[in-house]
């Protein structure tokens, strides 16, 4: 068990993150203070949630480019609703954000399921459509901090046992996903559908519907992230999380989730996101110009994918093994 973990991608990635943190800590001990680590985790929470959503989709051999746009649209819907009717309780708004996100995700899923359109085309289209709808909905206007109710803004910030609710939500989602992916038929179906779609049919799994469910769940997580994002930064506008879809995919790739489907783990996605989080937060601290960040994450993606591909490279079946051993 333990030795199996030590040999896994997750262990390697975890090691890389620890090493990176230690290196930073040598020069800036404050970086590893409990408070700062909590801050880094909190800052990465939304990326973790989104990466877990994207992971489900990628596991089924699909891809969702529209997650960030979905986040913006669901976020804008609840922000505007909150601004217009501050009386609506926050839990209802959170539920609404999740529902809107799920509907948008289902919209992607239905095209993939019923019309068999390649996911990349569908979500490339919905990426611009969702983003455009945010503009149409808001008329391009911002929803500012003072227009949001205090309860709306307070939720992700409230601290329990030393951690903000935002972090708790991420932890909750991680636990939920661990159970879903590891212990339910649906979770295992994601692996089956992505790993070998033909064999999945032989097993009685409806490939299209499983993909649809993955898109819907990913959409729901994007919706949740939409609320968390705007309440955390206390502002909503058309461009929020612009370009974030690629960060999400990058976190998955760094976390060892194979773009070809069927390979990946919750731990990998979380670590992939954390890797991003540490880098993003460390750069200003170690006084490297923020302009380096993009290049560093690019290099990390390339290294990660090259590394994972090497680990995945089929060892070839060895016909000669038995006879070699015999002689």
């Amino acid at each position, binding site marked *: 068990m333990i030795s199996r973990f030590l040999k896994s991608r997750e262990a390697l990635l975890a090691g890389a993150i620890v090493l990176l943190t230690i290196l930073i800590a040598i020069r800036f001990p404050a970086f590893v203070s409990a408070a700062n680590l909590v801050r880094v985790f909190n800052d990465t929470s939304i990326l973790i949630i989104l990466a877990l959503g994207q992971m489900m989709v990628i596991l089924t051999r699909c891809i969702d480019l529209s997650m960030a746009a979905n986040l913006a649209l669901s976020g804008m819907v609840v922000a505007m609703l909150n601004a217009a009717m501050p009386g609506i309780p926050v839990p209802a708004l959170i539920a609404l954000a999740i529902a809107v996100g799920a509907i948008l995700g289902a919209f992607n899923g239905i095209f993939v399921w019923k019309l068999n359109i390649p996911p990349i085309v569908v979500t490339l289209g919905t990426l611009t459509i969702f983003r455009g709808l945010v503009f149409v909905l808001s008329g391009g206007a911002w929803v500012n901090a003072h227009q949001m109710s205090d309860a709306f803004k307070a939720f992700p910030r409230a601290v329990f046992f030393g951690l903000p609710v935002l972090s708790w939500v991420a932890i909750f989602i991680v636990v939920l996903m661990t159970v879903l992916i590891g212990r*339910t038929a649906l979770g*295992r179906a994601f692996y089956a559908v992505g790993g070998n779609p033909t064999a999945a049919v*032989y097993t009685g799994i409806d490939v299209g519907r499983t993909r649809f469910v993955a898109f819907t769940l990913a959409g729901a997580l994007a919706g949740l992230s939409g609320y968390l994002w705007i309440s955390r930064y206390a502002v909503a506008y058309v461009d929020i999380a612009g370009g974030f879809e690629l960060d999400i995919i990058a976190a998955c790739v760094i976390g060892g989730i194979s773009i070809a489907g069927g390979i990946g783990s919750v731990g990998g996605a979380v670590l992939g996101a954390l890797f991003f989080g540490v880098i993003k937060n460390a750069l200003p601290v170690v006084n490297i110009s923020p302009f380096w960040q993009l290049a560093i994450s690019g290099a990390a993606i390339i290294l990660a994918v090259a590394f994972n591909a090497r680990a995945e490279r089929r060892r070839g079946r060895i016909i000669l093994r038995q006879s070699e051993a015999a002689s």
Partner: protein
Amino acid sequence: MLNSASPAIAQHASPLATRPLLTLDGVSKSFPGVRALSEVALDLYPGTVTALVGENGAGKSTLVKILTGIYQPDHGTITLAGEPVSFSTAYDAARAGITAIHQETVLFDELSVAENIYLGHAPRGRFGLIDWKRMNKDAAALLRRVGADIDPEARLRGLGIASKHLVAIARALSVDARIVIMDEPTAALSHKEINELYELVERLKAEGKAILFISHKFDEIFRIADRYTVFRDGECVGAGLMADTSHNELVRLMVGRSVDKIFPKTEAEIGETVFTVSGYSHPTEFADIGFELRRGEILGFYGLVGAGRSELMQALFGITRPSRGAVRIDGEVAVIRSPAEAIRRGIVYVPEERGSQGAIAGLPIFQNVTLPSLGKTTRAGFLQLSEEFRLAREYTSRLELRAAALDRDIATLSGGNQQKVVIAKWLATKPKVIILDEPTKGIDIGSKAAVHEFMSELASEGLSIIMVSSEIPEVLGMADRVIVMREGRIAGEFAREGLDAETLVRAAAGIDKVQS
């Protein structure tokens, strides 16, 4: 028709059970361009092994897929224990108590052995969550039952093909089924594992399960089956008790004509050595391969599935690199690093996997034919369509291709006709040596004869042919000389005269040390 072997008569004659557990009636299934099954009938009795025999492409696997809910029949009825049933997914069939070991291993490389066995019906624990511990334990028990020494927590990816097959068998047994279907379960197994499988079948029989057993191996059928049903070209042409039939009668039912006509081997004049392979080795797939091939000769390669024949041929064709060894063409040493180079040297390869390696679905027929010869049909890199059509017409008409037009997508053709296009594609390069890997695998009987006839014709025109085949009759019928491979090595070489099936099987399975 031979439908006189109707359920009524069979039932009457059965000493084993009185009422069939499962009855199929008038079941038909068509694919674009192929009628895979037409109006077939089949009965399965509890505690009885029914053998389903028929040539490649007779529709056996299609029937299995219908019974397991993967395909839906175009029409016809399925009656299970007196109730009419219909399955829309594999899950429905499993719930009704039908389980199958499919011909192709349909498993998941990235998942663990235990999960491959239990995917879709994993044991549940608290809150309805999957109970991994119990799953691993149950899987271990099942694997012991099929006589496999495999760690249930291992990833499937690392297993060999035989082990994978055992996992597939374990998966079939993991469902509490009344009907167990086995589609060529022994094709990838070794002698010892085959015997264990036979014992398992006996046990299942004793438990009162109805078993449908599909196999091309006659000795096997006569050993374990109680009844038989024969398919030919998608039709049911006979059924009855094994005790009432003979080897010859089954063959006659299967083939529908006398056997030697299918392999129209004409004696070609065998000339000088064209192609020599010596000490050819690969780190993991094959070792110390050496043979010669002469002009006008058909050299057969026989072996069990997974013996490494395809790997060897692909290395000769430049797809993979050997670690050691040399190839001579017309006495000259040739280093072949890529298929392009092999083609230039006059060696071509008709691959086993027609769908993924041979035909390029999406391209029209004529473009498939001209693809490796484009150097000849282009001028300064520019395409000459009329020249391409001319070339395609020339070679496809030699093979008597049937198609609506040459600009149709090759995917619209039937399997046999696709194979003809693939062969035409290679002939158009005017090769010296042509390697045919399972040239008649999965193609219909008419095309099969055409391919065989054509092979003879090519040989008599002076072409040298290597024919990889797992079908003993084909090897015996067509080859001038046969090399048998086992576990990546040559296990024997035999001349045509006096060669029989038994010798080949023994050499392939390594039962006796056979001297060549």
